[in-house]
C-alpha cells in the first residue's frame, strides 16, 4: 500500500450532440428570447487594431462530407500578440468567437484580426495562430487544433516543428485566398487528416 494521491481526475467528456446550438448558439437552433444575444458572436469590436481577416472553410468527415452540425470556438491573441486580460492587450479584442458550420452548406466563416506572434516558455516564440476547439455529434471529446497562416514565417514555431511528417504540418496552415481572405479546411479523418492537438 502507498499513500493516496491528493489529486482529482478530470470529469469525463461526452459528445456535445446534435443540439449543442440550443445551449451555445441558441439563435442558430431557433431558440430566441432567453438571452439578449448569443455569446461570442465576434472576437473583435469596433476599433480593433491590426489587419481584419476572414477565414472560410468546412469540416469534413472521413467520407468527405462536410459537417452541418458542428460548433467551433476560436481563441487568439490581439495583433500585438497579447491575450485578452494581459497587460496592454487591445480592449477591442475579446479574442473569443463561437460559430457554427452552415446548416445547408457546411461552410464556416471567422472574421477577426490577424493575431501577432506570442511568447512561450523558455524564450520560444509562437508564430501567429488561432486556437480552435471543435465539437459535434459523433465527437466524443472536443478536438483542439490551430490555424496558422501561409503568408507568415512559421519556420521556428515550436508546435509546427514537432510534427514529424512534414506534409501533415500543412493541415494547420490557412491558405491566402485574396486580400485578407484565407481558406482553412478541417479533415477529421482520411486523406489530409488535420493534426489535432493534446496540450
Amino acid at each position: 500500500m502507498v499513500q493516496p494521491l491528493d489529486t482529482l481526475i478530470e470529469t469525463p467528456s461526452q459528445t456535445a450532440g446534435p443540439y449543442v446550438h440550443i445551449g451555445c448558439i441558441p439563435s442558430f437552433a431557433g431558440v430566441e428570447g432567453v438571452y439578449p444575444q448569443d455569446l461570442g458572436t465576434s472576437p473583435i469590436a469596433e476599433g480593433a487594431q491590426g489587419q481584419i481577416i476572414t477565414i472560410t472553410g468546412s469540416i469534413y468527415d472521413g467520407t468527405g462530407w462536410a459537417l452541418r452540425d458542428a460548433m467551433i470556438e476560436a481563441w487568439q491573441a490581439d495583433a500585438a500578440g497579447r491575450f485578452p486580460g494581459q497587460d496592454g492587450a487591445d480592449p477591442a479584442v475579446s479574442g473569443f468567437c463561437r460559430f457554427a458550420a452552415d446548416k445547408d452548406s457546411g461552410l464556416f466563416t471567422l472574421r477577426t484580426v490577424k493575431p501577432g506572434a506570442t511568447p512561450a516558455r523558455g524564450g520560444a516564440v509562437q508564430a501567429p495562430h488561432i486556437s480552435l476547439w471543435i465539437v459535434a455529434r459523433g465527437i466524443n471529446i472536443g478536438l483542439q487544433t490551430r490555424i496558422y497562416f501561409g503568408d507568415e514565417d512559421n519556420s521556428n514555431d515550436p508546435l509546427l516543428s514537432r510534427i514529424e511528417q512534414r506534409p501533415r504540418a500543412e493541415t494547420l496552415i490557412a491558405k491566402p485566398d485574396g486580400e485578407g481572405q484565407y481558406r482553412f479546411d478541417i479533415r477529421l479523418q482520411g486523406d489530409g487528416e488535420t493534426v489535432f492537438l493534446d496540450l
Partner: protein
Amino acid sequence: MADGPLMPRRRDMHPVPFDPDYKTSISRSPRWPLLSMESTPSEETGPRFGASLLGPLDNNLIMNYSADGSPAIGERILMHGRVLDEMGRPVPETLIEIWQANAGGRYRHVKDGYLAPLDPNFGGCGRTITDAEGRYQFLTIRPGAYPWPNRANDWRPMHIHISVFGHAFGQRLITQMYFEGDPLIARCPIAATIKDRGQLERLVAPLDMSHARPLDFLAYKFDIVLRGRRQTMFENKPEGM
C-alpha cells in the same frame, strides 16, 4: 503567467473517440495520434465572462422561456454542485451553460422532429457563473428520455448537456449529467464510450434530498472537475538546468 502548465489530459479517463456502437463516431474520429506537448499561453489563457452577462432568469429554465408567466411542464428539480480543478481547488467565476430536452424528451431545435410535443414555455437552455467557492445551481425540469437513430432501438437516458469554460481555453469541457437510477444509462452507447466504469459513474448525479425544497423541487448534485495546473518551485528554472 503566474501558474504553470496545464496538467496533461488523461485520455484513458475520457471516452474513446472511435466506438463502433456509436455509429456517428466512426467517420468523425481522427485516425492519427494527437500531437501531444506541454501547454502554451494559447491554452493557459481563455475567455472570461463576468456576472454582468447574466439576466435574472438565466439559470431558471422553468421560467426563462415562459411566454405568459406559466412554468415549464415537468418534474421540478434543482441541479447544483461545484466546479473544482484536479488539485481540488474551487474554480470561481466560470461560465456554465446547459441545454436539455423537455419533459417529453423533445428538444426545441429546428432539427428535432420527435413525436413528443414541444412545451410552449420551455426553451431548454440556461447559464450561470460559479461563485467564489465554485458553486452553481440551476432550476429546471427533469428531461425525458428520447429515442435516436443509431442501432435499431437506442434511447438516450435522461440527461442534461453541460458546457464549462474554466479559466483556460485548454480546460474547455462539454459533458452530460445523468440521473441516479435510470436503467437506460447501462444501455446507452454514448455513455458507453467511457470505458472506465468509475468515470462513467461520476456523470450520474445522485438524488440530494438535503437540497430539495418540500412541496417544490427535488435536487440532484453534480460536481465537475476541470484540468488543473502544475505549480512547483522549480517551474521558473533557467534554460538548461
